């Protein structure tokens, strides 16, 4: 029985199959934006052909998709309407009333997902105690429905004030809409975000609604294809929170897919590092345009609760990662005042770096590597054109060396130093700014360009150890298989911590647990055990920013509440270096992470390739000959002393002077800084 993960990106679809024997098979096929399901099936087929397995042998199928991400970026939303309280129909247009870039007076703010003419206010109010203050004006709901029908609305979001305390009006509106406009999907804000702050609840519901028709159609089409191919297990999809969710849930809550791509990289990197015993890692996923930095402590990736999509805030748990514009295609420029910048503009895949010979005129990070010899003209990367050093040299000279008065190698080194410094700042923002010391972490280098920059980045921030997975270029597809099924539930529950009744709290936990059990039932066929992890958002009374801390297992008791409060005090001290004058705390939100565990993965992916004894000339201050190794030829226990280059189809690893690498479990390269001689 095998497990299959298929990750569809913008250019390529990566498919990974892990057999019962732990052998990993990887396939890469071009994505087909016009017909996404076709690439999915092509990836699946090519794996089954290689392994000789049949569709019926597939015991688990997980999928990463950018369909929601792309719809958000390109704003290809369904025609969506909003129903809210009378007097508040402008909630999405007003938003926070803040401007994105205060110094840019000339660029208009992003338009809301729902245009103003499709926002409807209806009479009725629930008050801050959750009591009905004014009855719902049902006739106004019906006339709004009529206007929506006339306008050809395809999806509806409903947000009424204090629905997180009392959803009666939202539910009644949904019932009226179901009658008045059957078949039009509806998102109720309390069901998506059961927390206070009306604007972010409305904007999250609106974004979810706007994706419902598109994602719903996609999932249905995919399920049909998969079923007709003979696969019997339920489809699971990667979410922004780093776990997968059954297709049925994603169909109702497509917004959870919004940032699933980078999340899969973090989880994939973290789980692959676990193969060599690393539980505290900083994931460094560098591709052509961006670098994503994530942090995983004791095996748990950090989660944050607010983010942004299409210029509007989204309140849903997602893996906390920092994305900066630093990739292989990032462009280096020198302005008229002699300041060198690298990124965020990228040459992308077309025309790409100058060295690709597709007409790229700008010097990029990749061109700098070509000039310095770390990427050789002989290096053949999957799906990439041959590299032309003369073109790279010309671009680096013209764009950087000449204006700065440097020689070619100095200019290329300068490009890499700036790119590395930008990424080092991002690593510090994800670690030291969050109270974590990066020196206690391993750096997991993934993505096509991550393993090329890992040594420099680790040196810059003082990280002593680097992990490069066996297939760094497809770590996200691996993450699909390595992660678990995960549902994040929460509820606003504001109480002074000192005044809580454990029985009252436990009744609230029981309600969340019931919700979670219903969701876990979807995955009953593929789960290998479950876990329920409780958390509380706490803050010092009067603060607005919460910290999330663990709460012990049910039933809630004075002891578990006290322990959570103590964890909060300790965490606050750790993050901010002080304990405030006023020490009362309050609970804001209860959270439940319900996990259905997938089968643990055994990986055996060493050796088999043909050794290739080679060297190439590389510049790292001086020109010298560096050893070149082929990744497919390395055997468990092999040791490589830097400087060296390690090539493979999906990425090139650069091992600097002062570093050495050993081939460890699963073919993973573990790099350590050598002790000073």
């Amino acid at each position, binding site marked *: 029985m095998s497990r299959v993960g298929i990750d569809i990106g913008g250019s390529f679809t990566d498919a990974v199959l892990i057999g019962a024997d732990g052998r990993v098979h990887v396939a890469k096929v071009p994505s087909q934006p016009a017909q996404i399901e076709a690439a999915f099936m092509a990836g699946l087929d090519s794996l089954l052909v290689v392994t000789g397995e049949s569709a019926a042998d597939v015991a688990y199928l997980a999928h990463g998709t950018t369909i929601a991400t792309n719809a958000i970026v390109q704003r290809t939303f369904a025609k969506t309407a909003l129903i809210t309280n009378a007097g508040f129909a402008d909630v999405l247009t007003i938003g926070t009333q803040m401007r994105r870039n205060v*110094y840019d007076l000339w660029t208009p*703010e992003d338009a809301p997902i729902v245009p103003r003419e499709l926002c409807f206010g209806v009479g009725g109010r629930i008050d801050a105690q959750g009591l009905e203050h004014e009855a719902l004006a049902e006739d106004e709901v019906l006339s709004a429905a009529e206007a929506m029908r006339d306008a050809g609305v395809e999806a509806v979001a409903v947000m009424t004030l204090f629905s997180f305390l009392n959803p009666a009006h939202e539910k009644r509106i949904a019932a009226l809409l179901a009658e008045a406009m059957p078949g039009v999907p509806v998102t109720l804000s309390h069901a998506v975000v059961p927390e*206070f702050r009306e604007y972010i609840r409305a904007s999250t519901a609106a974004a979810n609604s706007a994706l419902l028709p598109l994602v719903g159609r996609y999932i249905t089409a995919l399920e049909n294809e998969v079923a007709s191919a003979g696969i019997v297990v339920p489809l699971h999809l990667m979410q922004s929170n780093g776990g997968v969710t059954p297709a049925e849930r994603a169909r109702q809550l497509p917004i959870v897919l919004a940032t699933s791509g980078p999340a899969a990289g973090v989880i994939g990197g973290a789980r692959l590092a676990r193969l060599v015993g690393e539980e505290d890692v900083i994931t460094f996923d560098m591709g052509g345009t961006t670098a994503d930095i994530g942090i995983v402590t004791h095996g748990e990736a950090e989660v944050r609760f607010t983010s942004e999509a299409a210029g509007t805030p989204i309140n849903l748990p997602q893996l906390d990662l920092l994305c900066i514009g630093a990739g292989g295609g990032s462009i280096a420029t020198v302005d008229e005042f002699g300041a060198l910048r690298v990124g965020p503009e990228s040459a992308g895949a077309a025309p790409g770096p100058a060295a690709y010979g597709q007409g790229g005129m700008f010097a990029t990070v990749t061109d700098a590597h070509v000039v310095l010899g770390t990427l050789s003209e002989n290096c053949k990367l999957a799906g990439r054109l041959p590299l032309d050093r003369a073109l790279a040299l010309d671009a680096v000279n013209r764009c950087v060396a000449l204006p700065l008065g440097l020689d070619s190698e100095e200019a290329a080194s300068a490009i890499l130093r700036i790119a590395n410094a930008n990424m080092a*700042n991002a690593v510090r923002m994800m670690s030291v700014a969050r109270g974590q010391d990066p020196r206690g972490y391993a750096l997991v280098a993934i993505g096509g360009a991550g393993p090329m920059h890992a040594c420099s980045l680790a040196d810059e921030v003082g990280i002593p150890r680097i992990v490069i997975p066996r297939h760094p270029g497809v770590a996200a597809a691996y993450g699909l298989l390595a992660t678990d099924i995960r549902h994040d539930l929460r509820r606003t529950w504001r109480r002074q911590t000192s005044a809580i009744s454990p029985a009252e709290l436990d009744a609230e936990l029981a309600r969340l647990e019931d919700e979670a059990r219903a969701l876990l039932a979807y995955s009953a066929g593929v789960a290998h055990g479950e876990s329920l992890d409780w958390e509380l958002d706490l803050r*010092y009374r009067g603060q607005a920013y919460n910290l999330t801390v663990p709460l012990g297992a049910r039933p809630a008791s004075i002891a578990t509440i006290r322990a959570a409060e103590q964890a909060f005090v300790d965490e606050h001290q750790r993050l901010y270096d002080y304990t405030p004058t006023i020490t009362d705390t309050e609970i804001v939100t209860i959270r439940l992470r319900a996990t259905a565990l997938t089968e643990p993965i055994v990986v055996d992916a060493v050796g088999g390739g043909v050794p290739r004894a080679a060297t190439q000339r590389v510049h790292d201050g001086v020109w010298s000959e560096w050893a070149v190794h082929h990744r497919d030829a390395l055997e468990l226990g092999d040791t490589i002393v830097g400087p060296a280059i390690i090539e493979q189809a999906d990425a090139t690893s650069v091992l600097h002077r002062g570093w050495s690498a050993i081939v460890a479990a699963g073919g993973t390269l573990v790099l350590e800084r050598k002790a000073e001689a």
Partner: protein
Amino acid sequence: MRIEPPDAVTQEILASGFKHIAEEMAVVEYRSSYSPIIREMLDFNCGIFAADGRAIANSEQIPAQLGLMQFALESVIAKWSSRIEPDDAFITNHPYMGGTHTPDLQVFIPCFHEGTLVAWSGSIAHHIDIGGRFPGTESAQCTELFQEGLIFPAVRFVERGQRVQAIYDMLEANVRDPASTLGDLDAQLAACKRGNQRLAETITRYGLPLVLGGFEALVAQTARRTEALFRSWPSEAVEAEGFLDDHGFEHTAPVRVHVRLVVEDGTLVVDLSGCSPQIPSGMNVPIASAHAAAYFAVRAFLGGTVPHNAGLASRVRLIIPKGTLYNPTFPAALSARHLAVQRLTDVIIDALSTLLPEHAIAGSQVSFPALVFQAVDPRSGDLTLLADILGGGGGARRNADGDDGIDPYTSNCAILPVEIAELEYPWLIERTELVEGSGGQGRHRGGMGIRRDYRLLAAESDGMFYVEQTNPHFGAGGREGGATGAPGYAAIRRAATGETEVVHGKGYVTLHEGDVLILVGSGGGGFGVATTGS
């Protein structure tokens, strides 16, 4: 101290590192802050400074707080000079010692390296109340500084790591919401300590001479960049004027704001000699805040490539005669300075639009509706201070409408969420909506203002509110034939009579249960002549 100039690449890396330190300080401050002005409205800023007080890097939360901390730090340095010790911390808010208005507490801590003062970390934050005559401290109705709460004239409140308890005790006893004030002060100190830690790490990594060289190079590079851009501008002098509705009291005369701009020898001279003399109300502007307004407008027109530090400041010269609106004489009141700051920004942008017509933009609203009311919440028995700020219309552009419902220019405060207003304060928000037709007409229309109605649920509440730009003659200006935006206003509906009465735009009132305060922000100016029929 030895200074080593970094090479160009190291300089870029150091400069982005300095900026990063300021941003990390801001994260610490924001996440551990208390009062809604900081946590919901982000009315604060963090920065690092050279040993002599020159600004090096800032976190840039709100432009109104940007570019003015160096004035206060200069006062700290001048007062304490050789007596500054490691682990000291200083607090200042004195408007006549480089401060802004009294609710803005500025905290500075020195960074020492091997016994020598090498840099500073600083934080400025708008506290919800610092005592004085009115809840929330700031009011146009104040007539002298002494009504505007506690004054800290560059005071050392932490001595070699030990809190000076007497200062904390007095602070706690003199403000209306001591929990928020003390909590926010803790957050400011934590942010500054984080700044110093990161500075120390940078010095360890690069060595002190190179870090100091990085300070100098950044300032010099910014000055060069600013100068070159100014030299590319037309050299003619331009002027613009605008008016505040009145002195802050009903039936007083409009207040003139006038600017004359000219680039002279690579420096932009901002001459405010044509402004009104100082006025007998809380709407005067401390000199530091006048600079913040000018820096904002100028940076916007410089096009976003110039960071804020002492290098920019060295190329913008303000002329402000003593005893006038933007340089008042002690002890003139100035707690409600923001109204005249926004109007000054608007007038400078008007002048710059004339100087650089390809970047011309219609006026944004400067009505800045705001309120602070104290009331006992019947649900908890606690005294609460509700504060809120409303947006209005942005100015239309040559190619696009103005933004609806924004807090423009040097301000960028969030509107208070309805659910927080009703959960934490004894108020019901009856409506929050855009005002149809409030944007000035034109080929592109100005943005719409926001109206919000606050109904009191407690027995009684007193507080101050203001809405500037209520005079239709002083609405947000249109450009190239675009119409002026509609003015804002304040109104009160008394429960006892059920009647709504438009009231003077700046007031201090007592409300009773069921009374409704209505605040309305003005609309933005239109751009270009409206085509008929549209």
